[in-house]
C-alpha cells in the first residue's frame, strides 16, 4: 500500500438525509495512508448539526481502505454511543465490519488506564525520604552479606569457581595495563610540568622529582587507577550482573541454592582487591617515569640524579599509604559495581542506569574516601 504507486485521488465523504430522520454517510474513493483524508472532527460537527436519529453508511464507492478508515469510523461510532444514536453498519464492507468488531471485542480493562496525578511537594519529599531509608537499608544488607562471604572465603568455605577468579584477575589486572600506563604517565608529566614552572623561578628544578614522586606514590597513582578501574571494571561488573538479572540467571542461581553473593560478587571483589594495589604500584612507576621525561627533556636534569632525588624523597610510609588507598578503592569499586548490578531492574534501560550509577557511586566514594584517609593521616601525623 505504497502511496507513490497511486495518484492522490483522495477520500470522498458526503452526508445525505435518509428516511425517518436518519443520516447516510457516503464513503467513497481511496481511504489509504498518504491520501487526503477528511477531518473526523469537522465531520462529527456536520453530523451533530443535522441531529440525526440514526446513522447509516453507504460504501458502494469505496475503492481502497486501510486502518485510516477504521480510526475514522471508530470516532463516529464512539460519538453515536455517547449521543445514544443508533448506528447501522451493515452496509460497510465485510472486512471493515469484522475488524471494527474485533477492535471492540476485548473491552477495555477496568482500571488499566492511568491518570497522571500531580503530587504535592511534601508527598514528594516524604516519598524520597522513605526511598532513601529503604535504599540505605539495601546497601547495608549488601555490605553485611559481602562481609560474611569474605569471612567464609578466608575460612576457605566459600563456593565459587576458581576459574572465574583467575579470569577476573586477568581482566582487571593484566588487561588494564595499557590504559593505566598511558594515564598515569600523562599525570606524571602534568604534575612535573606544573611544578617545573614554579620551581624553575627559584632554580630548584631538582625538587620536581620530589614533587612527582611523593604525589604519585602517596595518592595520585591510587586515585588515577581507582578512576580508571571504576570506569573500566566497575561498569563492566554492573552491566554483567544487571544483564544476568534481566536474563533471570541470578534467580536461577538462587533456586540452585548457590549464593549469588559468593558465586558472583566474591570473586569479583577479591580480584579487584588483589589487583588494585599491584596496578597502583605500576601506576606509581609510570608516573615517576613521566616526571623523569619532563625533568630530562625540559629541565636538563641527569636521569640518575633525578632518580636518586626521588629515592631520597620517598619513604616506605608513602608507599604503604598509597597501597592502602588503592586497596580501599578496589573494594569500593567492586562493591558499588556489584551492588548496582544486583539491584538492577529487569529491562534494557535498567541495565544502562545500573552501569551509570555504578560508575558515579564508585568515583564519588573514591574521592570521599581519599579525603577521609588524608585527614586521618594528618591527624595521626603520618
Amino acid at each position, binding site marked *: 500500500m505504497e502511496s507513490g504507486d497511486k495518484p492522490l485521488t483522495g477520500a470522498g465523504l458526503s452526508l445525505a438525509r435518509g428516511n425517518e430522520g436518519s443520516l447516510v454517510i457516503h464513503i467513497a474513493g481511496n481511504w489509504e495512508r498518504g491520501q487526503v483524508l477528511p477531518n473526523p472532527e469537522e465531520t462529527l460537527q456536520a453530523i451533530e448539526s443535522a441531529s440525526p436519529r440514526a446513522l447509516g453508511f453507504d460504501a458502494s464507492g469505496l475503492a481502497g481502505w486501510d486502518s485510516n478508515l477504521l480510526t475514522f469510523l471508530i470516532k463516529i461510532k464512539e460519538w453515536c454511543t455517547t449521543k445514544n444514536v443508533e448506528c447501522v453498519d451493515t452496509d460497510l464492507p465485510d472486512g471493515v465490519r469484522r475488524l471494527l468488531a474485533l477492535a471492540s471485542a476485548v473491552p*477495555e480493562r477496568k482500571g488499566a488506564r492511568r491518570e497522571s496525578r500531580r503530587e504535592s511537594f511534601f508527598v514528594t519529599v516524604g516519598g524520597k525520604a522513605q526511598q532513601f531509608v529503604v535504599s540505605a537499608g539495601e546497601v547495608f544488607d549488601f555490605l553485611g552479606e559481602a562481609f560474611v562471604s569474605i569471612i567464609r572465603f578466608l575460612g576457605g568455605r566459600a563456593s565459587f569457581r576458581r576459574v572465574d577468579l583467575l579470569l577476573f584477575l586477568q581482566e582487571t589486572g593484566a588487561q588494564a595495563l595499557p590504559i593505566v600506563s598511558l594515564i598515569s604517565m600523562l599525570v606524571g608529566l602534568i604534575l612535573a610540568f606544573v611544578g617545573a614552572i614554579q620551581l624553575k623561578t627559584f632554580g630548584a628544578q631538582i625538587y620536581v622529582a620530589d614533587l612527582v614522586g611523593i604525589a604519585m606514590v602517596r595518592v595520585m597513582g591510587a586515585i588515577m587507577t581507582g578512576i580508571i578501574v571504576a570506569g573500566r571494571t566497575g561498569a563492566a561488573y554492573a552491566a554483567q550482573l544487571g544483564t544476568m538479572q534481566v536474563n533471570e540467571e541470578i534467580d536461577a542461581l538462587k533456586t540452585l541454592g548457590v549464593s549469588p553473593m559468593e558465586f558472583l560478587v566474591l570473586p569479583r571483589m577479591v580480584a579487584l582487591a588483589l589487583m588494585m594495589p599491584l596496578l597502583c604500584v605500576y601506576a606509581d612507576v609510570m608516573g615517576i617515569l613521566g616526571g623523569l621525561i619532563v625533568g630530562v627533556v625540559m629541565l636538563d636534569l641527569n636521569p640518575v640524579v633525578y632518580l636518586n632525588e626521588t629515592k631520597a624523597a620517598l619513604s616506605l610510609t608513602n608507599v604503604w599509604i598509597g597501597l592502602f588507598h588503592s586497596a580501599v578503592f578496589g573494594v569500593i569499586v567492586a562493591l558499588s559495581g556489584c551492588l548496582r548490578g544486583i539491584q538492577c531492574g529487569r529491562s534494557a*534501560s535498567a541495565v544502562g542506569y545500573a552501569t551509570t550509577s555504578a560508575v558515579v557511586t564508585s568515583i564519588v566514594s573514591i574521592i570521599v574516601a581519599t579525603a577521609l584517609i588524608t585527614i586521618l593521616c594528618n591527624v595521626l601525623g603520618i
Partner: protein
Amino acid sequence: MSEGEPQIVVKGLDMGYGSFILMRDLNFTVNRGDIFIIMGGSGCGKSTLMKILIGLKKPLRGQVFYGDVSFWEADPDEQERIMRRFGVLYQSGALFSSLTLAENVALPLEQYTDMSKSQIRSMVSLKLALVGLAGFEEFYPSEISGGMQKRAGLARAMALDPDILFFDEPSAGLDPVSARLLDDLILELRASLGTTFVVVTHELASIFAIGNNSVYLDVDSRTMTASGDPKKLLAESSDPKVRNFLTRGGENAHGQAQVKPS
C-alpha cells in the same frame, strides 16, 4: 495487486555462517494473501531464513525477489523501500523497554507518515484494541505479561498496515487459548486486509489451523524436502521425515497419526 500472484520468490538460496552452510538450494514462492509456514526441527535454520527474508542477513548465494526486484542485488534505497512494506513480530516481542506501549506503536507512524498527533493517537488506540490491549497505552513493556508483550509487538508490527507480516515463533510462550486467539487474529487480518503472512513455527496446531502454504527444512539433508499446503502434506507426503514431523513422531512410535488436521 490481486490475490494469488507471487509476492516473494526465493531462488537457489544458500544460507549459512561463514564457511558453514546451514541450508542449500532453497526454492519456493509465497503468494499474495498466503499464510506461509516455515517449519522444521530445532536448529534447522528457520529463524535464519526469516532473517534473510526481512533483510537482516545476507544469504551466501541465491536471490530473494519481492515482485520483480531482487532484494539482495537492489540498491540500499530500493531495499529500504521494500523493507518499509514489512512488519516483523520478533520472538519475544522486542518492544523498546524505555517506551510505553503507545510510544512503541507510534514510533513507526511518527517516523514514516505525516500524520498529526491526534491521528497517531487514534491509530495507536485502534492497533492496541485490535490485539486486545485497549487501555494499556501508558504501560511499559516490563509491566505487562509475556503474552501481552507479544500482542503489543504485533500491534507495533501492524502499525503501518504492512503488505507482509513476518512472525518468528508467534505461539512460543503463550498458553493454548492465547495461541489460538493469535491464530484467529492472523486469519482475520488476512481475510479483511489481505495481508500476506510468513510464520516461523513448529507448533503443529497452529500450522494446521492457519497455514495454506509451507516449506519444510530438513536438518540432515540441509535443504527443503517438502513444500505446499501443510494439510495436503500430511495427507499425501511420502517423505517419512515430513510425516514424522507433522504427526509429532506419532506414526513411527505408535503406528498411526496422533494429531489430525483440524
